């Protein structure tokens, strides 16, 4: 992307990158990336974290800075390498190491060494910790089960939704609608041209065989109807009108509005509804006025719960400040090329990916406006209103 631009990478005012769990030796991946991309010593860079919507946050912040006149051009995006999630030493092991380090002299060290217990070696799986809400003590999958129960969403509906997600992504890949996806080359001579979690040959039978992942044995949320745990990254260049003129740039779209909302952590999956509704209200839009919806597919149950909430009178009145149900959301406009269930949810990067992809969908379909929105672990939601160029 930077090669194609008529300016050098040091022309950015700053670099903002969403990332939920940086590696231990790259604690500000935005700065590391900015330097490695050739932005130079003089371009500031920082990493932003709002759980699953970190990649949306970076784009939103860039948009606000530029709108405020604080910056002309910002490189914004998101990244995550969930495959690199660490195994951690548990607290007892860490304390034992600390005691050993502080002990002076061989006798003292031997004394500490003698207190070691095999149980100290039991690792903590970093990934599991990251996906669990520490306040309400529920993991993300459990919040999806809660919503499934609340809105009466059955296993079959979730599986059917997931099947459709895979089908849509497979078709999009075949028809070249994922052109913004750039191949990755590794140091072993291998390359990856497209997201490889897609199962075009998936079936209800195969999905039906999977066991519940989070609340066994009677739960309904399975690995097949949940987002996949993957690696990914996305970058966008955001620029002011002046910068566009100066460099002769042709935008693919613009950010028109954004909103963030917070709600009960146990029902975090409804975040998109809480963040999108204010945007619809203040811009006087109905659900149908939005030509393309990207609601991040954290879980099939969660997406379906969002749709059900908008169709529920009581919920809309009590929680969204509306007079009644907003109505059904046209499934033909929702996640038209699939989503995190088939593509994966590298948490820090999904927000940036769907913001970018919604613009590509608008371009392709001739639509005018789209919303990219995600639920956020911990009980939040974020949404960006995007407009075609």
């Amino acid at each position, binding site marked *: 992307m930077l090669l*194609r631009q008529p300016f050098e990478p040091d022309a950015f005012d700053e670099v903002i990158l969403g990332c939920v769990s940086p590696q231990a030796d790259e604690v500000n991946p935005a700065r590391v990336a900015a330097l*490695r991309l050739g932005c130079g010593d003089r371009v500031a860079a920082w990493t932003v974290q709002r759980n699953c919507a970190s990649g949306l946050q970076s784009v939103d912040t860039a948009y606000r800075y530029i709108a405020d006149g604080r910056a002309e051009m910002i490189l914004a995006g998101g990244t995550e390498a969930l495959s690199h999630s660490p195994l951690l030493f548990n607290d007892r092991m860490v304390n034992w190491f600390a005691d050993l380090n502080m002990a002076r002299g061989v006798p003292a060290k031997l004394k500490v060494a003698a207190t070691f217990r095999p149980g100290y070696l039991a690792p903590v799986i970093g990934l599991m910790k990251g996906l669990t809400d520490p306040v309400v003590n529920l993991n993300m999958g459990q919040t999806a089960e809660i919503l499934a129960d609340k809105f009466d969403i059955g296993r079959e509906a979730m599986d059917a939704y997931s099947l459709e997600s895979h089908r849509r992504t497979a078709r999009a890949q075949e028809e070249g609608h994922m052109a913004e996806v750039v*191949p990755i080359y*590794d*140091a072993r*001579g*291998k*390359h990856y041209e497209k997201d490889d979690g897609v199962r075009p040959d998936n079936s209800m039978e195969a999905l039906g065989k999977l066991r519940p992942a989070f609340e066994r044995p009677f739960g309904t949320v399975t690995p097949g109807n949940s987002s996949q745990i993957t690696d990914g990254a996305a970058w966008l260049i955001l620029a002011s009108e002046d910068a566009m003129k100066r460099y002769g740039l042709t935008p693919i779209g613009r950010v028109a509005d954004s909103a963030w909302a917070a709600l009960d952590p146990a029902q975090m999956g409804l975040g998109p509804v809480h963040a999108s509704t204010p945007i619809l209200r203040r811009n006087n839009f109905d659900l149908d006025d939005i030509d393309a919806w990207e609601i991040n597919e954290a879980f099939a149950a969660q997406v379906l719960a969002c749709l059900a909430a908008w169709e529920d009178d009581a919920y809309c009145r009590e929680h969204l400040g509306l007079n009644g149900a907003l109505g059904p959301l046209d499934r033909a406009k929702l996640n038209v090329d699939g989503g995190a269930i088939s593509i994966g949810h590298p948490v820090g990067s999904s927000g940036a990916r769907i913001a970018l992809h919604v613009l590509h969908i608008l371009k392709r379909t001739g639509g005018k406006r789209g919303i990219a929105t995600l639920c956020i672990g911990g009980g939040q939601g974020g949404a960006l209103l995007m407009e075609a160029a």
Partner: protein
Amino acid sequence: MDGDPSMTTRTKPTPAPDTGRTVVAAPRHWYGERDAENIHWLTLDKDGATTNTLSQDVLAAFEAVLDELAANPPAGLVVRSAKANGFIAGADVGEFKGLRDPDAVEQLVRRGHAIVDRLEALPYPTVALINGFCLGGGLELALACRYRVAADDARLGLPEVRLGIHPGLGGTARLTRLIPAPSAMGLMLTGRTLRARAAKRMGVVDAVTQPRHFERAARWAVTKGLKTQRRPVLTALGNLMPVRWALAQVMQRQVAGKARRAHYPAPYALIDLWMKHGGSKKEMLRHEARSIAKLITGDTAQNLVRVFFLNETLKGLGGETGRVFKHVHVIGAGTMGGDIAAWCAMQGMQVTLQDRAPEFIAPAIGRAAKLYRRRLREPYLVRAALDRLIPDVAGDGIARADVVIEAVPEVLSLKHDIYRAAEARMKPDALLATNTSSIPLEELGQVLTRPERLIGLHFFNPVAQMPLLEVVRGTNSGDAEIAAGLAFARAIDKLPLPVKSAPGFLVNRALTPYLMAAVQLLDEGHPAAAIDEAAEAFGMPMGPLTLADAVGLDICLHVGEILGHGMSASGADWQAPKGLTRLVEQGHLGRKTGQGFYRYDKKGKPIKAKPQGSATAPTTATLQDRLLLPLLNTCVACWREALVDGEDMVDAGMIFGTGFAPFRGGPMHYIHASDAAAMRSRLVSLAETHGPLYMPDPGWGSL
């Protein structure tokens, strides 16, 4: 440090006097300062040079310094360099040229020994502060100091063996007494360079630090001493007579695997020197002087010195255009293109690598990663180099490139399409170059609106190991473009050889008759191993059949056909030897298919039978004539046709492009050192029995 007196006595090296002025007095080279603690800080800043070398006058000036110090002894002596590029790079190789009198040389060497001995004998602590390179005589000088402190970027070694000699300022005696003999001899026999930390582990230096701490470190060493890694008992054991004898046998076997005694006497002389005299430092020093005097006046050393200067000459061809090359775009990610791209990125340039689809680029990235891990080692440097190597299917890099290199298969229409597309997107003053080895530049450039833009940059395989780069001038190539090509070659640390465009340029053209002669001999029934052995006995790095297998028999055949058709001076139709065509038809293309003239095992090593002697077998000399005379003949032809600029350039190209027996100084030099007339007659008689491959070129008469 108590009180840290260093804060009150700043002693940074004083810069050398302006070398632009006329020097009235003899050059001083060494500049000294005494500090408040009576420590003498002696800085070498060789006058009129960018690099410190221990020329005769630098040594003489050092002797004068020692005289001054004797009159006014300090509490300690620190020896350091003022030049940022390094400590001391070794002797002044220019002073080795033309030395032919061993006795005179021995006298000179003994004078040098006397000076270094005086340094070693000083009755107060001496410390060498080593930044950057510390090679040859420079390391020998440092070894005569009590302590050695190295910067973390220091590179130390005793590479004299690569010039056909061994250390001659006492290094053979001092190193074998400082560190255990196997390490010491290993360093001297291979001539390899040690990084600072490895040098410390080995005991060659006593401390490694960042240069910003040099003063503190030196002061510490002088006033308090340094804890060293030395192992005196183990070292002494290694110098006992029976141990020396046993180790010498092992070392001789190891050296024999790499270099023959008749070709390269120096490593054997070094082993002999240590085996016989390693028990006594005095004897070792005395015989070191005699041994090096004998070596340096011999043909091998003189020829290797010649090769050293040929290398310098090629380096100088880069010129001073001041052009900066930041971005290179390579089209074609195959073995050559991918490796060219990887090399350029390793040299610090940003590189975009283009091919039809990601699957053709990915293997090149994998190979690059392997190269970087081996050469750069540090993970952060490996990653930085990989960052600079950018896969680019869409060719977005063309518009940014300072140099565009085309390295796709030898299909004219394909190359034409690429040039048309590239010319439309290239920067107006960007260089366009082709790695072609067989299609004439004039044909390639036909589709360009400005054909003068196109030059040839012909790399050799493997790119990371072959230093030569033929810079090819087509009939239409512009002077500015050629100059840019030469400068670019230096920018990526290759040795440029300007060559006129003609089939095979210089190297492939000279090698082809050598390869064809080998196959002809094979067709006549001589065993492959005997043919290759004859060439290796002459001094070629590998035999012609092994070389052909490595290059690929299809390529050899193709090049042979092109050269044959292009140069049928005798009017006869050139026929490829049957042995070659047969193998290619059967699909045995050499190492890459697991079989060619030899079979290859899984690791790519040839399975060779040992050559057996027989009563009717031709002598090695006969085989060598059959193999080498066509090669020499072609070199004469290339010289006569002025493909390159003079005989030295022919020699340089053949040495750096094919490894032609460097100890012989190059093919043209070898002809002059032998009997040119006799060679020509031999060619004539061989042509009578074995065909036009041996017809002598008209150029022999003008040599």
